[in-house]
């Protein structure tokens, strides 16, 4: 069963806020010149911020913030965040599948930014709503 797509906007201000809240102050997430020096196209979002946004989608679909049993992703492409008011947008979709356990549902997750997949093997197991 396909679940309704969720969309989350990400701006530079979000990256600064996430750096502070998470303690991950790697300058690739806030410094254009540092990002360029290490060969990145520009400032990129924390992979863990992208994973957190996809986690929001998962708990939204689950209908409860405490329903996740397992959650994993592979980071494949960076989410580039331009220095504009609009920033960029991460789109999250999922297909729900039965598991061997009737109380649990598996979600196969897809996260894209500007039409490009940014995660691979993204999966969550949630308690059945």
């Amino acid at each position, binding site marked *: 069963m396909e679940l309704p797509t969720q969309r*989350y906007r990400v701006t530079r201000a*979000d990256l600064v*806020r*996430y750096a*502070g*809240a*998470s*303690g*991950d102050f790697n300058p690739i997430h806030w410094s254009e010149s540092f990002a360029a020096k290490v060969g990145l196209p520009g400032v990129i979002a924390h*992979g*863990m*911020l992208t*994973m*957190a*946004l996809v*986690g*929001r989608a*998962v*708990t939204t679909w689950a209908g*409860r*913030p*405490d329903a*996740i*049993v*397992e*959650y*994993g*992703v*592979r*980071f494949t492409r960076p989410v580039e965040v331009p220095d504009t008011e609009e920033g960029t947008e991460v789109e999250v979709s999922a297909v729900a599948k039965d598991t061997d356990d009737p109380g649990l549902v598996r979600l196969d997750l897809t996260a894209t930014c500007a039409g490009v997949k940014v995660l691979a*093997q993204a999966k969550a197991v949630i308690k059945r709503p």
Partner: protein
Amino acid sequence: MGLDQSFTGRSYPPSAPYQVGREKIREFATAIGAEDAAYHDPEAARALGHPDVIAPPTFPMVLSMATSRQIVEDPALGVDYSRVVHGDQRFAYRRPVTAGDELVCVNSIESINARGGHDFLTTRSEISTSAGEAVVTVWTMFVVRGEEG
């Protein structure tokens, strides 16, 4: 030159206890735009059966990322941190992290693989309360990029 695969299975001393604060959870939830009441309001969390506000699912990274530095900065293992990229991330939850928890992280090296000139280092963090209740297991895969050219 790859990482020494004999480090696989090595376990590190437990981290100093981490006090999970209500305001830290709120700050983290706000930073990711998560407005669920149970992240912000103790009453809403209690209505779901938790003793205080609960943390969003990726919150355990706040602890595990900091404490897993004892592995990536282990001089004997010799990871060049400037070449490290976060490859993948996985969590298995017994219950959500909750305000008021005192958490301890025990880190170990789950696997080291070399592929295509890069090293793939997977760490495992067992996060439990200082009283010994298991809360969440966190796996982080670091890619240590090989020298180019």
